[in-house]
């Protein structure tokens, strides 16, 4: 029996509505980024990208991701191990707290560090007395980025490791393996694709974060501007080629992340089919 379906005209109408919505809201903005970036020609595009301020922004963005992503990776693995391999009270509260940075506004992710390290903040007077500056330096940018990307790796690993259970690790333990050996030889091979997935998403967000970083950066050109902040400044100065050129790099990063994500999806699907 054919599965029941709608009349042909309903099907075509729904497909058209869905595709028009996606085109207007997603495809056109994406195309527009590249069209605007290349509008003045390739040489203007590369001039905009090799501008010293743009370069400084690219370097700061790479540095931020290079610090924030590994730290959140270690945190994510460690939280997932503690939560999925053991039973303890308050587990769901702990998971909710780990998720919290996802549900608060990114601006709050910046505000809290201003309230800690700003002049009127909790540590402000002490920092000033000791002549230490944290706010409006790359340190604050990195802290705010760690905050907003905090749950990414843990979130990917929790359901995965929960599903895999703990029998394999317990068997390894009974056979005399040490904790580190169990993790490296048993757990890691099981979770590596999920881990990679989490790292990819974490990295994309770390490089693209705008709200939290914008609050703590101080927008000092060449020093505390990340790529998204550079895009904002250029755009507000009507330097559209400069803004969209750097924006096109960020859009490329998003596209590469999505392609890698769908490749990983395919790998995971094939693995699931192989293991009954």
């Amino acid at each position, binding site marked *: 029996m054919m599965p029941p379906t709608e009349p042909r005209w309903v099907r075509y109408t729904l497909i058209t509505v869905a595709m028009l919505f996606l085109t207007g809201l997603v495809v056109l903005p994406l195309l527009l980024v590249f069209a605007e970036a290349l509008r003045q020609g390739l040489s203007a595009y590369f001039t905009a990208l090799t501008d010293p301020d743009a370069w400084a922004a690219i370097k700061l963005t790479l540095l931020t991701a290079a610090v924030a992503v590994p730290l959140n990776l270690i945190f994510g693995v*460690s939280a997932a191990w503690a939560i999925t391999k053991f039973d303890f009270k308050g587990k769901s509260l702990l998971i909710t707290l780990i998720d919290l940075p996802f549900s608060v506004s*990114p601006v*709050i992710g910046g505000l809290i560090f201003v309230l800690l390290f700003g002049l009127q903040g909790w540590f402000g007077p002490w920092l000033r007395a000791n002549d230490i500056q944290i706010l409006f330096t790359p340190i604050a940018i990195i802290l705010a980025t760690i*905050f907003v990307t905090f749950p990414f790796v843990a979130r990917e690993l929790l359901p995965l490791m929960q599903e895999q259970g703990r029998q394999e690790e317990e068997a390894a333990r*009974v056979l005399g393996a040490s904790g580190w050996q169990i993790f490296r030889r048993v757990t890691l091979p099981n979770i590596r694709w999920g881990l990679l997935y989490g790292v990819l998403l974490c990295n994309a967000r770390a490089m693209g974060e*705008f709200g939290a970083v*914008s609050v703590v950066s101080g927008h000092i050109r060449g020093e505390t501007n990340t790529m*998204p902040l550079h895009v904002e400044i250029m755009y507000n100065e009507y330097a559209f080629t400069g803004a969209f050129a750097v924006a096109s790099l960020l859009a490329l990063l998003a596209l590469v992340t999505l392609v890698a994500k769908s490749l990983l999806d395919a790998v995971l699907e094939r693995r699931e089919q192989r293991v009954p």
Partner: protein
Amino acid sequence: MTSLPSPLDSPTLPPSPTYLRRWGWKRPSVLPGFGLTMGFTLFWLSLIVLIPLGGMILKTATLGWDAFFNAISTPRVLAALRLSIGGALIAAIINAVFGSIIAWVLVRYRFPGRRLADALVDIPFALPTAVAGIALTTLFAQNGWLGAPLDKLGIQVAYTPLGVIVALIFVGLPFVVRTVQPVLADLDPEIEEAALCLRASRWQTIRRVILPSLFPALVTGTALAFARAVGEYGSVIFIAGNLPMVSEIAPLLIVIKLEEFSYAEATAIGTVMLSFAFLMLLALNGLQRWSRRYEEA
């Protein structure tokens, strides 16, 4: 979705009642590393999330109730909160409608470009918000690709509250599609065939059979889109025009207050938004438990 197993499921220890009464806050296990990983987790969670957020709440507490209330009850703050919450609500409802249609089309129909369309749904997740913001603004500006034809019809999107809603629809879209899609794909075709055999019309089947089973996922997805949109900043500020009382969102007002060094007001607005986010998180946890029960039933 897998739920956390009860302690009785673990094969390591026999489920003896006397034993269960004895384990305090943590069940003993043969696996090593609990102290280390739990210690590091709590340390890092406190350092990055709990202490900074606690610092903000403490700061609000030092304001006193009157100062707090005065800070958040000015017309400008109320208008900003209304726009952030109201705009997010409208955007979430529009996403509920179009997100369901997109999920339906992607799961049920086969057409050229389906896989590409499926991949495109994730773009709003991955595209940095500032990039989305300037792209949407240029697209909907008076001389933009979509803004120009709309302008001929007398509709202004960029630099109006309508622009805020367009940006919020953009950021919320994947939440609805990605929550509804798997449930729709898992729906048993036999119940639809049964409805057909019972001579239900296709519309009756959709309304009485399919929609009720999608409902929990749809509500959850819409709530996720709403929660994200309330706090959204980057994609909105470019397109909004940011006129006080008209198109100024709450997160932007926090930034403006900080730039004016009115920490107290910024903190007060921040605390209101944090409380709102926490309430949404609790509601979402409840929703997800509800829909999981619904799926299992």
